[in-house]
């Protein structure tokens, strides 16, 4: 019950330096259950680095990450996946030689129970044995997950279902991005991190993606979103966080953030924004 009131994700003073550059600089953030926060900011602002810190692909130099009240700072990505954190990648990281079905099944890997008994020490050997022997329970689990994958793929209409047995490398760019999201959903995530899900998509495809994210939010999923398309950000987000040079420079509802002079300055550059103000005053 107390857990219900804790934020799903909570960052405190999260910092990551690369040599002289501070890519993520003392970021604080609280993401409530069922909330959707968008992170925007110019290229190189540190958004993807922040994602990498939350998902364990990179370790922070300072600060903490808590997930549902539990300190998860510095845990490995595979442990974090087990906690129910799923992400997509900025440029897309599908498994090129795997079929669409297998790509999405990998998303459900952390949910395998029958074939992956939680036995210490000899667990991996049991897994090998069960994979070869395939008792009824293992078969049933695999069958159930395959059906589930089809349900997830049906969310994308006829985009992926007809190509379910094709290798991912043969699909279009937009379809590979969809596979990534389907894979993330197969994990049944408690927290979903989307890194520019509409990058490189045309307006129709973007609208579809936006509708899907809205649907996920309506279903109660907690989402952290990196996105450049401001219209989508404004429509979907409960709150917007603006990053620039590793720092959080603004936070709040979309409209408020959009008119924040610091944000305009970050996007347009120092000299330019001053000039723009003068011009609008004149």
């Amino acid at each position, binding site marked *: 019950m107390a857990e219900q009131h804790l934020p799903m994700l909570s960052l405190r003073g999260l910092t990551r330096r690369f*040599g002289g550059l501070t890519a993520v600089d003392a970021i604080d953030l609280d993401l409530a259950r069922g909330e959707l926060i968008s992170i925007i900011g110019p290229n190189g602002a540190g958004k993807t680095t922040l994602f990498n810190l939350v*998902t364990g692909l990179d370790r922070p130099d300072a600060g903490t990450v808590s997930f549902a009240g539990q300190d998860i700072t510095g845990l490995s990505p595979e442990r974090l996946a087990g906690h129910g954190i799923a992400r997509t990648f900025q440029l897309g990281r599908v*498994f090129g030689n795997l079929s669409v079905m297998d790509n999405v099944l990998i998303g459900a*890997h952390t949910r395998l129970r029958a074939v992956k008994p939680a036995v210490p020490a000899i667990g991996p050997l049991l897994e090998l044995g069960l994979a*070869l022997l395939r008792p009824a329970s293992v078969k049933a689990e695999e069958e159930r997950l395959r059906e589930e994958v089809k349900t997830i793929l049906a969310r994308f209409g006829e985009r992926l279902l007809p190509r379910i047995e094709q290798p991912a490398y043969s699909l279009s*760019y937009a379809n590979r991005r969809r596979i990534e999201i389907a894979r993330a959903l197969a994990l049944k995530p408690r927290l979903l991190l989307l890194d520019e899900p509409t990058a490189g998509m045309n307006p129709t495809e973007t609208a579809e993606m936006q509708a899907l994210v809205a649907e996920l939010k309506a279903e109660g999923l907690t989402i952290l979103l990196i996105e450049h398309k401001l219209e989508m950000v404004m429509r979907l987000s409960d709150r917007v966080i603006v990053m620039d040079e590793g720092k959080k420079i603004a936070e709040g509802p979309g409209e408020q953030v959009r008119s924040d002079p610091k944000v305009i300055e970050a996007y347009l550059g120092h000299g330019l924004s001053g000039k723009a103000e003068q011009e609008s005053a004149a």
Partner: protein
Amino acid sequence: MASWLDYTINGLIVGNVYALVAVGLALIFGVSRLINFAQGSIYLVGAYIGWVAVVQLHTPLPLTIIVVAVAAAIVGLIIERFGLRPLQNSVRIAPLLATIGISFVLDQLVMLTFSPNPRALPSQLPDVRFQVGNGTIGPLDLLIAGVGITSALLLFVFLRYTKLGWAVRATAQDRDAAMQMGVDVNRVNQAVFGIAAALGGVSGMLVGMYYNQIDTAMSLQATLKGVVAEVVGGAGNVPGAVVGSLLLGLVESYGVAVFGTSYRNLFAFLLLVVVLVLRPNGLFASARQAPPEPLTGTFIAPSRPVRIPRWASVLAVGGFAILPLLPVSFYVLQTLINAWLLGMLALSLTLVAGTVGQVSLGHAALLAIGAYTAALLSLTFSVPVGLAIIGGGLMSAALGTLLISPSFRLRGHYVSIATLAIGEIVSLVILNWESVTRGPIGISGIPPLSLFGYDLISPSSVYWFSLAVMVVLALLQGRLLTSHLGRSFRAIRDDDIAARAYGLSLNRYKSLAFIFGGFAAGVSGGIAAHLYSYINHETFNTQQSILALTVVILGGLGNVVGAVLGSVALVGLPEVFRIAAEYRILIYGIVLLLLVRFRPQGLLGTI
């Protein structure tokens, strides 16, 4: 009794020789992110050209050096132009495999031209020693040091003050940006290969003079030492390669001083493994960064595998099973028995290299572990042969996985280097651990194959036994590939970062693949030991590792049916055409090159 100063001088001189090889490797890695496994072959070519110049043409020393440098550089340019440039837009694994193929072709050509017997390469310098402190130094030591220092200076001037040198450095930093700025990347590659080859060739000649002996086994040793020095210094780091080489020379020299000559290489490879595990980017590298995001897995060639209908496989196995009942010669059965044994090794390697993407170059070590375990179990402990073979498989699975586990966090070419080194370490341990392995004498009198008390002596019974074991292993592996483990292995191969983000532990799944693959290879080794009745530390060598890799690529990476088909093709066809043994390795090298160039997905396709 030589003094410590002598060992230090020796270490530095040998280090200088390694540096000539390693600097070339570092330059090539810098501009093309490729570990050139053919570098040792150029070194070999240099040694033999030196021999021709000195012994047959009687050239004076300065001219000998120039002739060797120019001739080796030409070989390097040919390799770059015809072996590697066509692969520029190919998958990342392709150039690595191509350099392995090239090294086989070059080594074999040298062997066919000059015969495998060692030759003396006189040093052309007066044989005197100067007293330095309590050690001595000879003119050849000074020459090697002089060549090393002069080459380093020339290289420094070239990279620092010439336009082409700037282009080389620019390409090493950012190939795409250099191309956009108008740098002719092909010319840079040419320059780098030419320089690397010239240095490698001269190095081979100097080593030949130093030991007054050259032979074809030098090639692999030089590649290994150069790679060790380069990785210790940090791949692509030219000054690092020099420091790494001197360090390697000293470590070896002091190791020899303390433990004896047969431990020399063991220290080199242990140094490599320690560096790979603790500082995979070398001693002088900055912190590692996550690799860029690929759009799709590009390490192996994408392909649609050829589907073999079940009835065709059943028919083929049935056909081979009734073969001994037909009037075929003993020779045919013998050949196919070898094919089945190689098939088991290829099954193992296709799982590890193809399905999980860990291109192992030391796979024969698993055979050796299985063979020694099985042989010692049945000889020393009188374990029934069938159980001893299974014991060999289990030992290979356990020990092989344990040995390779430190390299689980490495990727791409580093895995190949680590497996190559671990393979060499296994062979060296077998050589030196005399109380258990009987050292260089080997194990003889291993009992013949038998099953439930019945000896399998006739060729047909051995044939059926090995065919049956291979078919069972292939069926098991096929079943493994259709399970969740199959897709997990392939996911790790295609993108290990994404795989980890979805909960796949690399240690766990790479271990499982090596356990399964190690068992198959160990069983193959165990059967071979009882079949041959005699084994030693050279029975299972790097050539077999490379042969197995060629088989696997021929069949299609990860492809179970392909592994078997490839084994039959590569073992059977040379026999059918009665090709002499010394030409076979040449043919394997050429097959590998042609495959990488024209059909990287193999006959039946990558799975």
